[in-house]
Structures are given as C-alpha cells and as structure tokens.
C-alpha cells in the first residue's frame, strides 16, 4: 500500500514539475517576448519588424502547439513508466 502510494506521489510530483516547466515557456513567449520584453528584443529585425511583434502574432501560437504536444507525449510516457496508464 505504502509503495503504491509513494509511486503515485512520485508520479504527481513529476507531473507538477513538467507543468511548471511548460507554463514557464508559455509565459516567456507570450507575456515575455511578445509583451514585456519586446523593447529589449527590438534590435532583432525580422521581416520588416522586430522579434517581439513576430512572437505576438505568430511565435507564441507556434510555441503553444509545441508545448501541448510535448506535454502530451511526455505525460503519456510517464503514465506507462509509473504503471498508471489506462
């Protein structure tokens, strides 16, 4: 019983770490690069404008897709690793 419980706890802790990592990237590309840090990135030119604008209108959306697929892939592996998959 205890072993089962600690296994489940380890799984949940791993999930929380993974979520935290995903949400850091999520915030960095949107609230960071696209909004708050845009003035710092204004030196980097891309297609007639600056990197911050690209992140605001394209980069953040593409990164969001990457984050979700990474999370899904990684979690489905964790499910199996901890023997908690359906």
């Amino acid at each position: 019983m205890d072993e089962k419980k600690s296994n489940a706890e380890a799984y949940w802790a791993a999930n929380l770490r993974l979520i935290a990592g995903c949400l850091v990237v999520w915030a960095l590309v949107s609230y960071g690069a696209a909004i708050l840090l845009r003035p710092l990135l204004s030196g980097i030119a891309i297609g007639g404008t600056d990197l911050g604008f690209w992140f605001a209108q394209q980069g953040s959306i593409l990164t969001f897709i990457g984050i979700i697929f990474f999370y899904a892939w990684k979690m489905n592996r964790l499910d199996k690793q901890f023997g908690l998959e359906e």
Partner: protein
Amino acid sequence: MSQFAINILFVGASFALYIGIAIWAKVGSTKDFYVAGGGVHPITNGMAIGADWMSAASFISMAGLIAAGGYANSTFLMGWTGGYVLLATLLAPYLRKFGKFTVPEFIGDRFYSKPARMVAVVCLIVASVTYVIGQMAGAGVAFSRFLEVEATTGLLIAAVVIFFYSVLGGMKGITYTQVAQYIVLIIAYTIPAIFISLELTDNPIPPLGLFSEHSESGVPLLAKLNEVVTALGFNEYTADVDNKLNMVLFTLSLMIGTAGLPHVIIRFFTVPKVADARWSAGWALVFIALLYLTAPAVASMARLNIATTVYPDMAGQVESMEEATANPILYADRPEWIRTWEETGLIQYEDKNNDDRIQLYNDSESFASTAEQRGWEGNELTVNNDILVLANPEIANLPGWVIGLIAAGGLAAALSTAAGLLLAISSAISHDLIKGAINPRISEKGELMAARISMSVAIIVATYLGANPPGFAAQVVALAFGIAAASLFPALMMGIFSKRVNNTGAISGMLSGLIFTLVYIFIYKGWFFIPGTNNLADTPENWVLGISPLSIGAVGAIINFAVAFSVSRMTPEPPQEIQDLVESVRYPKGAGAASNH
C-alpha cells in the same frame, strides 16, 4: 449563374450536409446526447473543438480588430490560443478522468455541495447565453448580406438547422457537424487569404507572406504598411503599447476565460481515454492555429489594400509618401466591392469637402496641417471592421464561388459555436438542475427527453435574443470571458490541484471572484449594461491602475484563488472520500468511459 444563386447553392449544400449528419447521428441514450458516447477520436475531437471554439467573432471580426489595432490587438491572437495550454496541462485530462457529463457536476461532487453546483450552473448559463447571442446575431448578418433575406428570416432558418442536428443528435450530432463545419470554414477562410498573399507578396502561404517583401514596392510588407499608415496620420501598425499591465491582464483574462468556458471543456469528455484528452488539446490548437496564423496576415494585407485602393500612388516604390497621399481616387471610380458593401451600410462615404474624391485618413494632430493645406475637411470613408474577411474575395477579385464559400464559412463558424453553447446550456439544465436538484429519480428516458426539451427552449430563447439583441450585445463577450475566468476556471483548477480547498472555500471564492468582476464591469459599462447607469466614464483615465473592464477577469480569478485558500484554511478540511476523489482524478488508471453514476 448569378452571385445570389451561387451563394444559395453553397449555403444550401452545406446545410443539407449538416441535416444529413443529424439524421445519421440520431441518439438513443443520455450518454450519446451529453458526450457523443465517449468514443470520439482525438483528431476528430480536435477538429470539432476548432469549430466549437472559432465563433463568428474569430471568423468575421478578429482580422478586422487586428487590422485596426495592429500590434496592440495581438492580445486576441495570444489570448484565444494560449488558453489551450492551460486546458491541456491543468484541466482537460483530469476532468476527463472524473468521467461525468457536465462542468457543474464536477464542482458539485468535488466540493460536496449542491449550492456550489448551482453557482456553477448560474455562471455557466450566464456566460453561455451572452455568448450565444453574438453567434445568432452573426448568423443573421451573414444571411442578410449573402442571401438577401431579412436577418430575422435568416435567423429562423439557422435555428431550424441547429434544431435538427442538436435536438436529434445531441453531442453526437454536434460533433460530426462541427467536423464538417470546421472543414467548410477553414477552406473559406484560407483560399481568399492565399490569393491576397500571392498578389501582395508572391508568397502563397499567408503567415509567411506577412513577413515577406511587398512585391510592388520591394520593401518588407510590414515596413510598407507602417509607412503608409503613418503617412495618413495613423499610429505605426507595429507600434508598441504604453500600458503593458493592461495588455498582460487582458491577454491573461482571455486565456483563463478560454480555459474556463464550459462549451469547450465538455468537448474533452467525448474522447475514450485521458491520454486522448491531452492529444485532443494539441490537435485542437493545430486546427485553430490554421485560422489564427492566417488572420494577422489577412489583417495587415487588407489594411494595406484598402489604403492603396484609395491612394493608388502609394502602392509602388514611392519617393515621397506625402505626395503619394495627395491624389485620392474619385468617388465615381471606386471599385465594385466598395459599392456592394455601401449597400449594407458597413462602408460609409460622406463627401465633406465636396471634391468628389475619397479622403481616407486619421484626423490626428500629425496630419492636421496637411489636411488643412489640401482643403480636406475630415476623414470621409468609414469601413466597418467586420467586413474585412467577408469582403476579402471581392477585394482580391476572386470568382463568385469563393464568395459563396465565404458565406457558407461564416455561417458554419456561427452555427458550430452556437450548437456547442446550446448543448452546454441544455445539459446544465437537464443534468445539473433537473436530475441533480429537482428530480434525482428521473429515468434515463425521462432525462433524455428533458435534455431535448431544454435544448429546444434554449434554441428558441437564443433565436429571440439574436433577433432582438439587447443593447449590450457588443460588450457581452467581455462578460462571458470575465465570468469564466473569475468563477469557473479557479474552482476547477483548485478542485484538481488542492486537496485542502473545501466547500465553504470554493463557494466563497467563486462568489467573490464573480461579484468583484461583475461590479468592476458594471461601474464602467453600466449596471446590467443599462446605458447611463455607469458610475464612471469608460475611459483609460478612470480605470484603476489603467486596468480596463475587459481585463478584469484575471484579477477576479486571483481574488477567487486567494479567498478560497484563506477561507479553506479557517474551516475543516474536506472529508476523506473527497480527498480520495481528488487522488483518483490525478491518475489516469481506471478511467473507463464517461459514466453516469
């Protein structure tokens, strides 16, 4: 064949398809009705979520909003996509594991409280009803423009079609019509965009065209656009914004609101496994991104197109931008699409200085002296943001069938979202209100009948409100997102990630988040949106810390979290069986199909 006949053909064919699906998808159980039997493939579900999510606002209005606001309105792009990261990591897989039919049901069970469930029902109904009004009104506009029928008649036709597939087929009918509607709307959106991108940048992929060279002038498209709009006295298209706090909070409100909207969440209940719920979120965002990456390209290209239509000298390589703005076209020489849309009143022209030419510029200080020199007496052309996408095929001189496609696409976007919302409303009534509170012993057959009746009533109410939209229709989107962000999202998240938050904490959290958000909106927008009852004018100087009422949902959410945690600390922890429930939601093992016990 006349344009009218082509439009009828495209819209008629798409409607026939939806009705065909309705007849094929007729359901016999509440499980089919609420969650499409729980066996929808994650890619299919991703596509259905795409149509469910992308409303008349995304299809018709968003590109226009971005065209008008430039960089500042990127908030819509990030806000309406970033919520899917929250759904995938914080809500969808666990709510799928919980395996029930509705959002209030989770809140009621997790917080072992009927009042909590009822608060959730009220939030769900208010958010969804306000949202559905916009869809029905959007369908009415599309009908009146393309099919030359009265908006009300159009609305009734739309209502009958929705009635068919949602009352007969429930979630199952809605799922497969949403898949068909997604295909119709994405083709309709991207084809004109591809042609416009080719014409302006020689690049057939609009998102790449956005960052390419403008072929006529040889300068990057966005640099060209900045030159053109500043020469006409507008702000730079890519200009940064001053009020970053408000921009962050607005984006956050849209993201949290997206993740908390019940009609999106319940779509995740239809897949077979927890892992599929995660994949669904990814696929949904892929399908949504096809439109959301095209929209900003459409926005900047259309903005440039309109300016160079009025000032043809501005299009090519220009020595002096100021000279290029000196020769606007004669009103008599305006292109056909301006004529067509003038008839709808969505483009308006007023020859203020009686020179028979069209002056399009911003009445700003930077342009005032130029205007005075030239004897211009104000901007003369007003273009409604909403026509950008609908007029795209005409602006790009595309054949009539593309216009027919746009008509079918706009209706698909409005109908698919309306159906999803109506299902969320009717299942909250039949499952949470009738079975959950009024008559728990109702039979399976009785509940299915109740679900169908609630759906019919919801359609009638939505159609009525769509035909007679209350004056606040334009503001209600803020209300829907504010409510979802401030009440539902935090409650759902705490229900999964905290074992300590108890019934008292959750209810006080939801109510304080909700009331705070509503009061802040009402202070600026009028109490219950009644004009003239606002306490402060809705202008940035009056906003607390520069936070707009549209951005307040995020603050409401923070208050909800804070109150729920503090109150829970001071009251007894949840009983053991509730803590076990939270445990079970966290681990995919033993999910089984969505069930009703």
